[in-house]
């Protein structure tokens, strides 16, 4: 805390966002506001993390801070000052001198900044040509120096390559170098690691730290991932429905949030250090600006009359700490208790009688003349009522394994037994009970629900197939009961999938699986596309279903923290092979396989940031 403070008093902020309001104009020329009166100051050498669920206005804020102009983006008021120069009032020709020079912007998934049809040398050279007066030779030396900083040994050969001729991680680092090349005063990063594998993500963040070392750059870092923000930022801004609801020093916000929304976000974020269950936030973000009451009131568990009588303002609760909540001071202790996780996991050991046994399973893909071994010699046993997670990066074969169990990808070798009976490889050869008791839920609910069917029809098909006891006329009622089971309103029955949010769709998909009363749920990355609050609610649903019915769960995920929360045992899959399988506790405390250790190391943890309190210099951390 101290060093940050002293920095602040010494140097005035370089970026001042004052009462910024932004909207989008729609086809009918109506302007929908998405940001409402946002003010923020960023000092040189500080990193401000901005966090919130999707639809809260984060990305719009990122674009507005660099003065981005787009046909549909409407600036409704306020200003963005860089050293007293208002970007929003500037002419495009003037802005162009700022962009890429003093102001740098990093888009979602850093490497998308690279033009696929231009050689790296030309791309890296461009910002220097535009913003500096360096000679050709100096520029080249500068580029090589910068690439070395992000751990890329560059030579002429590398500079003459196209982006796709680098590995994924290298692309990210080169793109980062390109942005940092002109040593910007202000750096805005909008979800730079979205869509990147965990191990690569660590790489990107390390490269970012490396290139910020010793610089005076002021950074705005936007992410939906609390842990990522916690690991990198020293100031945190929590946004909700287009407004700042909490702003303060990172470690205090994460240790003891003052706004119910921040607390709820924390409570719904799984952590590798904490095996207890996460908690979802009911409802969904309003998706618009609310000015007549607290925008979070509908979903808040601390709501009082005062909350809906007027819109709360952002008030200081401590030095350099502001909260937008009328009850901020009185509920501090309640909030702290709220963040404590409830209910320890019931750990069911693998000694349970086996339900599903796989031995020596092999799966291949054939394309052209080549054979790709997606799953190699996998043997595992899932006990009755057990929750087993399969963790691996993209391409590790974890989805293929689930598809094989579900009968969608017949294995090329090995056997599967379910309830002691052999499970045929082809879905078509299976008995109706085997269809019923093994239920698969897919990763992308947008693709797993037929867009031409209503929710009612989607839920009725498993009822028709698996519940012959329910008469045709009652199927509709059963479907509506199923919706209530996944905490959705029965009014959704008449809707089509495109009329639902991502979280609602995934719940419908889960309800479709529940309809069969399965003995084992095969869940394929079911929460990876969802916001943390929705993800937490999904995990709770799965957990309670398993608890109530004694069903087993096979949970495929790339996210170790999620695996930690949901599972009794964890199997780590690398290139189609299980490299380590152990009880969740054991795996996290005493991993043995080198790959598991790499994966665990790639997890960003809040603690790397908490070290800040011990007082090391900023530069080393950021």
């Amino acid at each position, binding site marked *: 805390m101290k060093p940050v403070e002293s920095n602040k008093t010494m140097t005035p902020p370089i970026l001042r966002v004052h009462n910024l309001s932004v909207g*989008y104009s729609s086809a009918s020329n109506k302007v929908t506001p998405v940001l409402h009166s946002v003010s923020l100051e960023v000092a040189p050498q500080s990193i401000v993390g901005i966090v919130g669920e999707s639809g809260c206005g*984060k990305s*719009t804020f990122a674009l507005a801070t660099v003065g981005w102009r787009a046909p549909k983006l409407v600036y409704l008021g306020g200003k963005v000052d860089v050293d007293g120069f208002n970007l929003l009032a500037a002419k495009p020709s003037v802005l162009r001198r700022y962009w890429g020079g003093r102001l740098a912007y990093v888009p979602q998934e850093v490497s998308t900044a690279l033009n696929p049809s231009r050689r790296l040398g030309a791309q890296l050279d*461009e910002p220097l040509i535009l913003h500096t007066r360096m000679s050709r030779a100096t520029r080249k030396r500068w580029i090589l120096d910068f690439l070395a900083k992000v751990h890329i040994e560059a030579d002429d050969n590398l500079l003459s390559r196209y982006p*796709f001729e680098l590995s994924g991680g290298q692309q990210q680092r080169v793109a980062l170098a*390109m942005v940092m090349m002109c040593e910007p005063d202000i750096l805005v990063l909008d979800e730079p690691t979205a*869509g990147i594998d965990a191990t690569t993500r660590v790489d990107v963040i390390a490269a970012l730290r490396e290139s910020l070392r010793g610089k005076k750059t002021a950074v705005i870092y936007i992410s*939906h991932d609390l842990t990522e923000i916690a690991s990198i930022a020293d100031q945190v801004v929590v946004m909700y429905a287009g407004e700042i609801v909490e702003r303060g020093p990172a470690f205090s916000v994460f240790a003891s949030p003052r706004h119910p929304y921040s607390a709820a976000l924390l409570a719904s974020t799984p952590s590798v250090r904490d095996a207890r269950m996460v908690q979802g936030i009911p409802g969904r973000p309003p998706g618009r600006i609310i000015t007549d009451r607290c925008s979070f009131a509908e979903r808040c568990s601390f709501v009082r009359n005062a909350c809906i009588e007027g819109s709360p303002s952002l008030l200081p609760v401590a030095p350099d700490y502001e909260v937008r909540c009328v009850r901020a001071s009185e509920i501090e202790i309640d909030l702290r208790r709220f963040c404590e996780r409830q209910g320890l996991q019931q750990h069911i050991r693998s000694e349970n009688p086996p339900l599903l046994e796989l031995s020596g399973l092999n799966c291949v893909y054939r394309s052209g003349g*080549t054979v790709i071994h997606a799953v190699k010699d996998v043997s595992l046993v899932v006990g009755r009522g057990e929750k087993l997670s399969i963790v691996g990066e993209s*391409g590790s074969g974890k989805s293929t394994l689930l598809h094989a169990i579900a009968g969608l990808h017949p294995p090329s070798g090995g056997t599967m037994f379910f309830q002691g009976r052999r499970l045929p490889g082809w879905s078509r050869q299976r008995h109706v009970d085997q269809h019923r008791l093994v239920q698969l839920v897919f990763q992308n609910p947008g693709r797993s629900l037929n867009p031409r069917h209503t929710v009612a029809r989607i839920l009725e098909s498993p009822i028709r197939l698996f519940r012959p006891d329910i008469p045709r006329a009652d199927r509709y009622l059963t479907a509506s009961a199923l919706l209530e089971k996944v905490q959705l309103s029965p009014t959704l029955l008449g809707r089509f999938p495109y009329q639902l949010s991502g979280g609602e769709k995934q719940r419908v998909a889960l309800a479709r699986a529940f309809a069969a009363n399965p003995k084992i749920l095969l869940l394929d990355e079911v929460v990876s596309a969802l916001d943390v609050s929705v993800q937490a609610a999904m995990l709770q649903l799965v957990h309670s279903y398993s608890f109530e019915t004694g069903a087993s769960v096979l949970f495929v995920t790339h996210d170790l923290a999620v695996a930690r929360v949901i599972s009794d045992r964890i199997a780590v899959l690398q290139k189609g092979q299980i490299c380590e399988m152990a009880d969740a506790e054991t795996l996290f405390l005493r991993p043995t396989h080198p790959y598991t250790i790499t994966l665990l190391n790639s997890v960003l943890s809040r603690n790397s940031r908490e070290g800040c309190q011990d007082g090391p210099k900023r530069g080393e951390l950021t």
Partner: protein
Amino acid sequence: MPEPSKPYFYPERADVDSPGYRRSFLRFIAQRAALGIATLWVVSLVTFITTNLAGIDLAEAALGVRVTPEQLTIFRKQQGADQTPVKRYWVWLKNVSTGDWGLSLVGRGQRVSDLVKPRIGRTFVLALFALTLALPLALFFGILGARNANGLADTILSAIILVVSTLPEFVVALAVLYLLGVWVGILPPNSNAVSYGTAKEQVEAYVLPALSLALVLVPYSSRMIRASAREVLASPYIRSALLRGVSESRLLARHVIPNILGPIANVVALSLAEILVGDVVIENVFGFPGLGQLAVSAVNTQDLAVVQATVIISASSFILLNVAADAAVVLLNPRLRRLGV
């Protein structure tokens, strides 16, 4: 929602970079060419069967009704009509591929190749002329439309393009003919001067048919260019480039054009192919003495040897240009060129 939520995690996919998965550039072209040859073979087969075997008597058609049986037999022998179909096809194919199309039945002993040759040249020049008119227009409209997508200019342009693209070619050609050829009257409405007129008359005779062809082409090609330019302009690297301070003109030249070169070349090749086949109608509207006009008159007079020749020539150039179009896309895209298709 102004801010679409992006999935944090991408789905698993097959390992496309593994050796053998991608076809190399040359192999891709070889495959396309082989396919083209197969297609051409099918065309030749269809042409041969319909014109030679399907119960028509070439001899009677050629020599008329008042002919003695002896004459018929001699003629058939000359034509090889007494052989087995397979043998006849083989001989026919050999002749055709060496450019020997036989004799025109209507032109009384004129060699088909002599009839066709000057027309190939004229039709080809007409096609190139039309292309040079159409391409700059298509580029201009396409990029303009992409740059202010759904704006006023784009909406108006799109509507016009939609209407023009719908019209049958002869309607477009007749409109051009009457507006410029008759009403304004500065250019000859009939293009037969191409084959005999003075140099000036010859050039003038090309203008209206070329303009009509260009009008038929522009909607299609500008739409293709608009689509690819729009896709590129919406890419994250374009926004990133702008946010690095790249000016509009530099953006177009260094960031957009390199990415749409492939599609442009593709459009050029396909347009040329389309013109070579599609100018049949327009040549007939203007009386342009090209391959298309010859084809139609041959069909009307049942001059089958000439029909065969025009069809096979058009089909070959069409297929060749299609292969070229495929090759252009791959050749001008560094990713496809280096990693394969």
